[in-house]
């Protein structure tokens, strides 16, 4: 257990981070002592990853200072942070599958004897570390085929052979089952007893009580609350995480009409990202999908619109089964997906806005397959005007702000009046003005009788725009809430169930 009289091994003072004019971290103070586990909690986008990346030297803070074991600390890159004794265990594991456990543990700094790698020494040292972590496997085994839990432990072994005094575990249990989770916790207890400091980032709030000594809650780039014990009711944590933010305005949404437009029946992902999801969306309804990162929301909407394969289940549009097998089929039926990543999935950044809008609207600009640049430009100009894009058709997409790019993406897919529109994270990373413009577009769609699905990690946004909200948790449909019963706490409780 930590004794507060000792100085912390790591302190952060007034750490800020900005991208351009946008400040995403507003002065964070944080202390970690040897032998304590600090849980760092918050919604998606609260700034947890930014903090851990700054500590690990992946990104540089805009201002503020860090102290590591009493000395000033400003790692220029991850290498320096590792050399100082920090270890970051990533959410996605970064092991080399076709090398042995021992080789992975010592990658890049293999023990050498003259002329070659000293395999025996390497494997002995790795084996010792594995035993310390209670992992009963030969160090000469290949990493390929190891369970996720064991891969986690290999990552931890790797960090420990670097004499890590502080470990950052980013969502270590996201892919673990109950028994595996408990084994990981036993190892964490052991590390704590050895005096290793641990920053523990997780969305699973129930496990915090079991593992954490202190809790730090972040929201929108601020540290909002600190609890000096891990034993805090989940409800209290959730309330602290979601907060009561003032002043965000949402337009009034119309009442949905009775007819069902879209029906999804028992849909299962081909990759196992989600299982057995069913729901319906009515004409003029805005249907929100909430959940944590990795809950399978994006996978679900991509599968519905034919972008990803499904294993079983069906999609019905206006009573007819359509179950699209490609985005092209989905678009032909009048169902469009506005994907979450406008830079990688929405736009060809090096091409002009007019071309980008044209790519999704060949049916309208060139019904017989015959393209005239004039038609593309005119069509694009109309779409640009209708969706309030600030820019010209000839401009390249990469010359625009994020908000404007998002409007171009919307214009691209909405220009030929679809029946169902799926918006995946429609306002991620864009400013307030562009946000409200996008909400206005959603209202307009709903008024016209379009069925709209909005996937968002922004709880307030889901609550503000949706008539009903489906909450997903770990690929399951955790529940569907009506607007009247939904609030941030009820959603978070379902999402972490």
């Amino acid at each position, binding site marked *: 257990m930590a004794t507060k009289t000792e100085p912390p091994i790591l302190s952060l003072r007034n750490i800020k981070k900005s991208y351009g004019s946008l400040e995403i971290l507003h002065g964070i103070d944080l202390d970690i002592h040897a032998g304590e586990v600090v849980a760092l909690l918050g919604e998606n986008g609260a700034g947890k990853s930014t903090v851990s990346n700054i500590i690990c030297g992946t990104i540089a803070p805009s201002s503020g200072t860090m102290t590591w074991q009493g000395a000033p600390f400003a790692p220029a890159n991850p290498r320096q942070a590792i050399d100082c004794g920090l270890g970051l265990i990533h959410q996605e594991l970064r092991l080399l599958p076709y090398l042995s456990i021992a080789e992975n543990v010592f990658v890049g700094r293999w023990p050498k004897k003259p002329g070659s790698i000293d395999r025996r020494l390497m494997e002995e040292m790795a084996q010792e570390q594995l035993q310390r972590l209670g992992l009963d496997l030969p160090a000469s085994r290949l990493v390929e085929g190891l369970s996720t839990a064991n891969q986690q432990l290999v990552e931890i072994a790797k960090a420990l052979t670097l004499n890590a005094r502080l470990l950052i575990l980013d969502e270590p249990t996201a892919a673990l089952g109950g028994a595996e989770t408990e084994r990981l916790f036993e190892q964490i207890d052991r590390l704590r007893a050895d005096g290793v400091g641990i920053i523990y980032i997780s969305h699973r709030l129930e496990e915090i009580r079991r593992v954490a000594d202190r809790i730090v809650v972040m929201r929108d780039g601020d540290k909002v609350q600190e609890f000096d014990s891990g034993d805090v009711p989940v409800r209290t944590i959730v309330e602290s995480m979601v907060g009561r933010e003032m002043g965000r305005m949402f337009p009034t949404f119309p009442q949905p009409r009775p007819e069902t437009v879209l029906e999804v029946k028992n849909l299962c992902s081909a990759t196992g990202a989600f299982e057995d999801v069913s729901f319906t969306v009515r004409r003029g309804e805005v249907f929100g999908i909430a959940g944590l990162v990795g809950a399978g929301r994006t996978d679900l909407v991509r599968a519905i619109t034919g*972008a990803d394969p499904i294993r079983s289940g069906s999609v019905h549009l206006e009573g007819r089964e359509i179950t699209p097998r*490609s*985005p*092209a089929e*989905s*678009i*032909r039926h009048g169902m469009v*997906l506005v*994907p979450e990543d406008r830079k*990688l*999935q*929405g*736009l*060809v*950044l*090096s*091409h*002009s806005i007019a*071309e980008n809008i*044209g*790519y*999704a609207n*060949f049916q309208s600009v*060139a019904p017989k*397959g*015959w*393209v*005239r*640049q004039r038609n593309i430009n005119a069509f694009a100009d109309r779409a640009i005007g209708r969706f309030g894009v*600030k*820019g*010209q058709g*000839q*401009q*390249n997409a990469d*010359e*625009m*702000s994020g*908000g*404007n790019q998002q409007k171009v993406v919307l214009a*691209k897919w909405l220009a030929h009046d679809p029946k169902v529109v799926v918006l995946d994270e429609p306002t991620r990373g864009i400013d307030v*003005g*562009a946000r409200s413009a996008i909400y206005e577009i959603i209202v307009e769609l709903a008024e016209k009788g379009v069925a709209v699905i909005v996937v968002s990690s922004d709880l307030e946004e889901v609550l503000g725009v949706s008539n009903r909200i489906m909450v997903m948790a770990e690929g399951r449909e955790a529940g569907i809430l009506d607007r009247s019963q939904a609030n941030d706490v009820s959603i978070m409780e379902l999402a972490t169930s």
Partner: protein
Amino acid sequence: MTAIAKNGPMKASVASLFSLRGATGPLVGLLLLSAFLSFATDSFFTSRNLLNVLDQITVLGIMAVGMTFVILIGGIDLAVGSVLALAMMVMGYMSNVVGIALPLAMVLALVVAAFAGVITGLLITNFGVPAFISTLAMMSVARGLANMITDGQQIVGFPSWFNLMAIVRHGGFLTVTVGLMFAVFIAGWIFLRNTTGGRSLYAIGGNPEVARLAGINVKLMTIGVYTMSALLSGLAGIVLAARLDSVQPSSGFTYELDTIAAVVIGGTSLSGGTGGIAGTVIGVLIIGVLRNGLNLLGVSPFTQQVVIGVVIAMAVAAEALKKR
């Protein structure tokens, strides 16, 4: 909020007027090269020599159109030279050994070439073999098949009209083969500019996932592109056979490199998404004029290789620098 580049719209309109899609640099290079050769030699700037240049670039020009499509979608086709040889040998064998009519033999040659392209396309889209590898494999297979047909021997003795297609200048300047090349240029240019299929190639080259989500059938287009490249290689093979009045399985060796060079000199980016036929025509002309001019200047073939290599490197470096 908006970031309008000050000269953005103007630049775009000038470029679209000439429709060179960034090939103005190569055009300037071609003009400078021609001007230099006109002064340095007596014979370069004569109608006879310029018509010769056109005759000499027919094979390269036809193949370069297909290669432009391939490179536009971010692919590469190393098999064009071998497919050219295979098509030649199929035509020669069918007409002179099997004994069917030559026009029919030409059609068969084109079918075989296109089939080779379908195979490569399927390997890329359905089996996930990278374009570099699948066309490398096809390069080897097609060359081997071409050799197997006559056990490496050439075939001669075509009807006289066949060779005359590459010799008789109709209206005083246009041989059938040169006319064919122009027809392919124009068809390729219209396809890329004015059809949804052509526009889709730009989208696929820009970002295949964006194209797929926008409802473009990326797989089908990819197969189509490799089929077209192989088909045009087959057509180039027929043209080469007419020019040589014979077919031999060693024809077209390393042509893939010349073809890629012409396309890249013409400003089509190897990373896909930008470029076009206008630039490729200029690239083909640069290579043709350079070869012709170096011959007129009496430069040895070995030195010519060095010069052409330097030109390729300089042309692409100049484009890359301009972008920065």
